[in-house]
């Protein structure tokens, strides 16, 4: 085979998968909001309602000593919700599409990617609400807000990696869905979404939780107007890259084995 035709087959492959990918994304959107009156409006309404509830419940306990408590809450909330949604739905990606990949030869990561496009767009919508709330909460907008793109990109990579790992495990063990629900609770309480970590003897220990690293990045930029240091960046990159590498490894290793388990 000549070089030129090699390049052409690669080009064909990308084009072919691009169409599949677009169709999968459109399917996921159509089936997700089917039958709801508000449709995508829920993506914006849900975090707002959640925020109001948390604000009402926790202000008396934690909000008195903290400035911009609403924004503090919201930072934790939107990041954790995105992580939660992306991984919980990502976990289903392989099993839910088993009827397709056992019949058609199609790259399996497409299913997870398409789910993640949806959750990313959802996250984008909640960000709009977030910035509006920041404005109401008298947050000063600085150029540093543009740096938020960094944690968002790495959170996307991290979510993809965790989604890959979970969806592969879920093919082998159905218990994963229950186990993950419990783990998510643990991660949530360890993410300091509604409380302040400075009361703890060793607040640094929270950085062992990847989700907290992302939340804290947001808070430092939005509330305190400061850019996180090298170590903070290093941790974030480390968590994301590790997750995606393990995920890719599992997909590669089990690519032709999933078939037997579904």
């Amino acid at each position, binding site marked *: 085979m000549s070089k030129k035709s090699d390049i052409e087959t690669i080009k064909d492959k990308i084009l072919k998968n691009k169409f599949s990918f677009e169709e999968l994304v459109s399917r996921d959107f159509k089936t997700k909001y089917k039958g709801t009156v508000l449709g995508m409006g829920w993506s914006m309404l849900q975090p707002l309602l959640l925020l109001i509830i948390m604000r009402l419940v926790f202000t008396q306990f934690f909000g008195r000593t903290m400035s911009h408590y609403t924004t503090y809450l919201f930072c934790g909330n939107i990041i954790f919700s995105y992580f939660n949604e992306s991984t919980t739905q990502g976990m289903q990606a392989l099993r839910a599409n088993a009827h397709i990949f056992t019949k*058609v030869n199609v790259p399996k990561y497409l299913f997870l990617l398409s789910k993640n496009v949806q959750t990313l767009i959802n996250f984008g919508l909640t960000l709009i609400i977030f910035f509006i709330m920041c404005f109401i909460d008298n947050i000063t907008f600085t150029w540093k807000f543009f740096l938020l793109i960094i944690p968002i990109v790495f959170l996307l990579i991290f979510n993809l990696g965790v989604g890959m790992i979970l969806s592969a495990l879920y093919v082998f063990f159905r*218990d994963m869905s229950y186990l993950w629900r419990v783990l998510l609770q643990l991660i949530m309480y360890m993410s300091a979404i509604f409380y302040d970590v400075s009361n703890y003897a060793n607040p640094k220990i929270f950085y062992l939780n990847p989700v907290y690293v992302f939340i804290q990045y947001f808070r430092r930029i939005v509330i305190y107007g400061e850019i996180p240091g090298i170590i903070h960046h290093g941790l974030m990159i480390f968590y994301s890259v590790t997750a995606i590498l393990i995920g890719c490894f599992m997909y590669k290793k089990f690519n032709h084995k999933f078939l037997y388990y579904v």
Partner: protein
Amino acid sequence: MSVLDVKDVSIRYKTGDFKDIGLKDFVIKKITGKYKVREFWADRHVTFKLEKGDMLGIIGTNGAGKSTLLKAISGIMIPTEGSIHREGNIAALLELASGFDPELNIKENTFLRGALLGYTRQFMNDTYKDIIDFADLWEFEDRPFRQLSSGMKSRLAFSIASMVKPEILILDEVLSVGDGAFKVKSENKMREIIAGGATTLFVSHSIEQVQSLCNKILWLHKGEQVAFGSNVAQICETYQRFLNKEISIHDVNPNICLKPQ
């Protein structure tokens, strides 16, 4: 150069306790030593070659390894031993009516299926009308898929797959779908595809159909290759006698088998 070259392919299939068990069952069975995975050869030493324009009929009783072989050829599974060499793109239709999304309507499902089969958006835009024409489903276009009958689903699946001009087309018990009228229509379409130069593999339980359409036959029995060759009438006749229990599989004269050496 052959379009499809299957060389001494063997596929090991796994089944057993690992399917649908929970973590608890898995651990307990592992500890008590009751964890069993049964492995068997779904296909053993299958060898054949197809040239451009060939139409191969694959026959054999249930559990012969036909579908597994097709899955390997289409790239969904990889052979445990041996090699498969393909020239050109493949459109595979395995277990037709499944694989559609029940919540989407016909148009959405058609595009999704087309995309997964490797067609381009341009191609789907151009041929969408022909596909629905052929499947005769215009009046149901906006219905969610779960409201369609299984015959309609299969008709649509066949129409989508047959519109393309793939180098290799794989059909798993496709021609047995639809009502009488559609059967005639789909058989004609098949002849058109063969005339167009595509290499086609298809599984059928209808010996008549195989005999009237195919120029080569592959007979599998419990994973073993009983016969392969272009002497269609002869192999079909022997197969029919085997089905009628006039002869046992061991009596099959190896001479009907024209295995490429």
